[in-house]
């Protein structure tokens, strides 16, 4: 198919790479155009294949620290039309905050521990390819908890509103959230309005901008 999403996969562990490829094999709208196992080869592959989306590990050779985050920032800086999904083992918001430092457009952060469902991964890749953002809900939980520990604003949110906040950060639109929580879209919109006024955020329509707003607020 001509409009399939062209993807480059980077991970230094063969088994993980094979796992990701096995999942992607069941995502019909995605074509894997290259696999890489370190930071330099990833940047070369991106130059060569001009993919729509890059899936990358965080720790890769040469330094095994945070090459994936660096690569994501480089790629986003040089080729704004390319989306990047960082696949991490760490539910540590520090990496996410760093990744989203200069904006969250076309960026995603997923946990390897939760990868497995082709449909979910496909959705994330599509979202990032079209300028959206995706963050694993566990990360959002960590951020929310960290924020709760230091400030009391989030205490004012009802449990339902927190659920909505988490799903929103995952990049779901109102319809998606409604489906996930088995609510009407109208009810979701009501929750969001009340939540945004509690958090002092103005209502934003586009779902990926909402992710950014929520993350920025949480990270602050």
């Amino acid at each position, binding site marked *: 198919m001509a409009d399939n999403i062209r993807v480059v996969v980077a991970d230094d562990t063969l088994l993980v790479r094979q*796992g990701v490829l096995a999942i992607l094999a069941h995502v019909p709208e995605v074509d894997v155009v290259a696999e890489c196992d370190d930071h330099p080869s990833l940047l070369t592959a991106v130059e060569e294949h001009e993919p729509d989306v890059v899936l990358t590990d965080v720790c890769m050779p040469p330094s095994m620290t945070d090459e994936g985050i660096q690569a994501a920032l480089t790629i986003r800086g040089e080729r704004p039309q390319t989306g990047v999904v960082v696949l991490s083992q760490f539910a540590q918001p520090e990496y996410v905050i760093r990744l989203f430092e200069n904006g969250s457009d076309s960026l995603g952060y997923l946990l390897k521990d939760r990868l*497995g469902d082709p449909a979910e991964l496909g959705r994330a890749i599509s979202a990032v390819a079209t300028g959206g953002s995706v963050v694993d809900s566990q990360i959002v939980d960590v951020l929310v908890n960290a924020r709760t520990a230091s400030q009391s604003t989030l205490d004012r949110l009802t449990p339902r509103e927190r659920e909505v906040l988490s799903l929103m950060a995952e990049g779901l639109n109102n319809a998606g959230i409604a489906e996930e929580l088995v609510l009407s879209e109208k009810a979701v919109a009501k929750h969001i309005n009340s939540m945004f006024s509690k958090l002092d955020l103005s209502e934003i329509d586009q779902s990926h901008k909402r992710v950014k707003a929520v993350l920025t607020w949480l990270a602050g």
Partner: protein
Amino acid sequence: MSEPRAADEVATAGGGDHPLGQKHAVEDAEAIVRRMRAFMRSNQAIAAAVFVIGGVVGALVVRTWVAFVFLGVIVLNILAMEICARRINTANAIQVGLVATLANWALCIALAPMVSFALPVLLFPILITLLAMSPLLDRRQVMRFIVGAALAITVTATLALSIEGPIDEEIPDNLGHVIVVFCLAAFTVPTGFLAWDTHVRNEVAMERLAGINTELRSSRRRLVEVADDERRQLERNLHDGAQQQLVGVAMRLRLLGVQHEATSGDVDQLLGDLQSAIDELRDLAHGLYPPLLEARGLPEALGVAARRSPLTVTIDADGVERYEPQIETAVYFCTLEALQNATKYAGADAAIAVNLGDDGLSLSLAISDDGPGFDPASAGTGRGLRNMTDRVAAVDGDLAVDSSPGTGTTIRTVIPHGGASTPIERA
């Protein structure tokens, strides 16, 4: 790390009873023997000179049998010094030194009634033994020696001042004065030598101590570095090896579960087991060395540590940047240890404040809790505190524990980073 190297380090660090180690103990003993022999020979030379002068004066001026007694006592002293100088070695230096001392004291006491005009000269052989012997003796022995010397001086002076002997009567004042002046001047040679030797001994000891101290500090630093490198390597091997492979397997297992709904219950159970294995491995690896510390530095790594702690931990790390890895690991593990201690002793609802600061020259760390506190004097040194002290000392920092019952506990340390080593910004 090879064992012989570690053993070497222990040997140079503290082998033997001598504070500077076995090798220096031998050098030191040899230096002592040289010092004592030089003292005995110079003492002997002056006695020989006195013998010659005494002989001439005795034959030409004094002409009494007491002059022969005088010369005989001098000869005995010269002989005693000869035997001592020949016999002294590293094993018997103190005993032989004492014999020489007694020979000198006996000489002075014996001569005092005969040549009381020479009293100032007679005090020197007594005092000089004190100077010669003091480095050989321990503190208590030196005290006894001083008392002994005081007694010898008292006896000598009393005899000299109360008895006017036959030699005194015969010797004209002028000749007496010349002899006294000559002898006093001659005694500055051995006295000066001993003072000089004492100075050199101190200087050498200080240099050796400084050298050993530098060696010890750098070897301690190296040991900590080696241990940290090994922990880091172990963390990487676990993370990049076993852990990642399990994560890869889990992904495919999850995929299987999605694809084959019929078996998804079994798959879920397997996944649960696999996930707990992965989590356990991850915690283990993270405890060994947090990758975030190397990648992003102290504030972020400590942020994660704070979230993992069951207590409420706030971290203030304004102005803290990147430092040498040894400094960062020292501060990190020290904080971790303090958090663990607080978890154990400060109570479940304690609040911990971690304050990091940088004044441009050093990095300061203060960890305070609002727990019950303790009395540092009665608590002894626990393993946690010992670890912290060692960690911090390896990067030239001091650790202070501030606590008393009822006021909580604060642990403080200041680690110099040299200022010149401008905070390292690693990409």
